């Protein structure tokens, strides 16, 4: 239910004129809730940024998420490892 909670939070925050990016661990849930910009990551539940003590992988996930900020064709649901473009 963490994934639904993140989606609902993103809706409330985006409605306050703040851009949001949501990490998703369950595509089935995110594809129904429709947060504005979500990055589905192919990791187990409990491992949203990939692996503990792996700053390199964690940065890859974050940067792939931040790259979605350019998108206004909401709802956006991209998959990590497919089409991410790093920022900066």
């Amino acid at each position, binding site marked *: 239910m963490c994934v639904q909670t993140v989606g609902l939070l993103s809706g409330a925050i985006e409605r306050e004129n703040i851009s949001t990016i949501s990490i998703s661990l369950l595509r089935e849930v995110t594809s129904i809730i429709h947060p504005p910009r979500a990055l589905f990551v192919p990791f187990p539940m409990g491992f949203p940024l990939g692996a503990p003590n792996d*700053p390199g992988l964690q940065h890859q996930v974050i940067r792939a998420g931040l790259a979605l900020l350019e998108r206004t064709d909401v709802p956006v649901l991209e998959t990590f490892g497919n089409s991410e473009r790093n920022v900066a």
Partner: protein
Amino acid sequence: MATYDDLVFTHRLFMKGYPFSRYALDPVPCTPLGKPLHEARVAIVTSAGVHLPEQENFDHSIKGGDTSFREIPNTVETQTLCESHRSPGFDHTGIQTDRNLAFPLDRFRELEAEGVIGELNDRHFSFMGSIVMPRKLIDETSVQVAKMLREDGVDVAFLTPA
């Protein structure tokens, strides 16, 4: 990769029967980032159930889920955060080993130092995502947090589940 098929049997049955569509965002809100990311103020919002040691644990006894939130100061030493998420539906050992796995404050500090983002907000927010009856979350606590972020001048919120 996590799919419904990766969940334990009872959770899989629950998720397949849960009325997610009842809570779908409609219309989907869209706020374009109105400035370069390297000038933007960023906050982290998580549903991983982390909090300061001196803050109350999330309440596991509330039937529909604890919709409260904890404010996490930006100055916190990330690894000192506690995690009191009630869900047996995920492996907690990763987050317990490295809080950045779900609350990546140290990673965002590095992005701030590199100039990728403008600055971090003075506070971040944490919920416990095991909320099966989210009406109070939708009507009250998510709105409270959103308004606080707005008052702080936050431009970007990065949201993570557990």
